[in-house]
């Protein structure tokens, strides 16, 4: 499936360029952290790569047919979208879509519910869970199909410390199990903790794509990019 090659990728909505032109090749494995100030195009980048948003120009080429690539991806949104069903049914939903037998889907869903600490809430309507629980459920629902690539749009933006820690542990485990994670975040600390690569966007354009070790290496000063350096120092960038 990887590498995914983007050429001249551009997204224009109502005459405004939200992303691009962008030329980038993403390799398999690890966690790529997408950073940048508000309006940099992080969400647009993730949604376009995943196919939720259409690009206006250019191309995204996976190494497998588009349908196959789409089947092997999942997406976790900043605000978790819960199906108006129970926790168990939320977890079995993607499995049933893929044609898994009901009893097998339930078995797997119960295992995942246990892993994310929701085993006691299997029959609870998912929309009634707390924000942190909903995000964990959304992540488990995305991972339950064992995707090769997982996109995450600021998955811990509205969560407290302990919920963030649990989510990060699940993400690290997923990456260790071979899922390629592409995740946007505002949180520099989180990017340092999780990132293997960093993609920095500004006004829809890629400013920097480099290994995290280089970007966060203090002697290297944000990969030698002034804008990235200022962002990492906490300056407000417009």
């Amino acid at each position: 499936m990887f590498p995914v090659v983007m050429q001249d990728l551009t997204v224009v909505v109502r005459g405004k360029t939200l992303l691009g032109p962008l030329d980038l090749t993403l390799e398999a494995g690890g966690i790529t952290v997408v950073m940048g100030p508000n309006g940099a195009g992080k969400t647009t980048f993730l949604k376009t790569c995943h196919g939720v948003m259409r690009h206006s120009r250019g191309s995204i080429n996976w190494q497998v047919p588009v349908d196959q690539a789409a089947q092997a991806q999942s997406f976790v949104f900043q605000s978790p979208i819960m199906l108006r069903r129970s926790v168990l049914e939320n977890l079995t939903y993607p499995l049933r879509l893929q044609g898994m037998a009901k009893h097998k889907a339930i078995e797997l869903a119960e295992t995942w519910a246990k892993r994310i600490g929701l085993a006691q809430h299997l029959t609870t309507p998912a929309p009634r869970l707390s924000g942190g629980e909903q995000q964990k459920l959304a992540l488990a629902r995305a991972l339950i199909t064992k995707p090769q690539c997982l996109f995450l749009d600021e998955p811990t933006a509205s969560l407290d410390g302990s919920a963030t820690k649990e989510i990060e542990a699940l993400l690290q485990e997923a990456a260790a199990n071979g899922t390629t994670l592409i995740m946007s975040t505002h949180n520099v600390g989180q990017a340092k903790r999780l990132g293997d690569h960093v993609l920095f966007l500004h006004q829809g354009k890629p400013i920097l794509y480099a290994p995290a070790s280089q970007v966060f290496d203090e002697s290297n000063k944000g990969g030698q990019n002034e804008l990235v350096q200022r962002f990492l120092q906490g300056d407000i960038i417009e």
Partner: protein
Amino acid sequence: MTDIWDGLAQAFWLLVQLDPTLIEISARSLTVTLTALVVASLIAMPLAAILAVRRFKFRRVIISVINSLMGLPPVVVGLFVYILLSRSGPLGGLGLLYTIDAMIIAQVVIITPLIISIAHQSMRDLWSEYHDLLISMNTTTTQRILTLLWDGRRALITAALAGFGRAIGEVGAIMIVGGNIENATRVLTTAIALETSKGDFALALALGFVLILLAVAVNFATHWVGRTEREGKW
């Protein structure tokens, strides 16, 4: 005021005695309305979901037309169905005029746009909530429609109940296509109209109370089956 008390008393006695005519008319009312409701729901609900999920040419025009059809005057529908089913009409050969089937057809025509319109509003809201998730899960259009219909089932029950309310109280169209024939096509509403025209207000009121009772009972039963109150807001 005396008529109302007389009506109440007569309704009570008719019910207590399980008056055969009352039972027959009530059963026919329910049969016609519930059959029409099932047929209309089977047409309307998938259409409502399709209109929410799919984007195609003239979609907005179709939605506007359906919304306008919610206010269809039943008498005009009755006339239209009558012309279709009359011996010289295009469907005259079916011999449906003055039968229960004709009454069901008329009610289906009346309540289908109403159910589509109400169901579409809830399907549209649910689709805007689910859009990104279902697209990201690479679902097919059929899977999206089925998901909306299942997850929005409580709102759909409300749409169906609105259709039921309109159908059970309908008189103009079914009078025209059914003919209010005793032991054949007479239902509660047409019987009420007949008794009122005869000046038997007490019996008309009694039938009216029974009609209200039936409507309330069906509403309660539907809410109980759907557990709309127990499971709260989704």
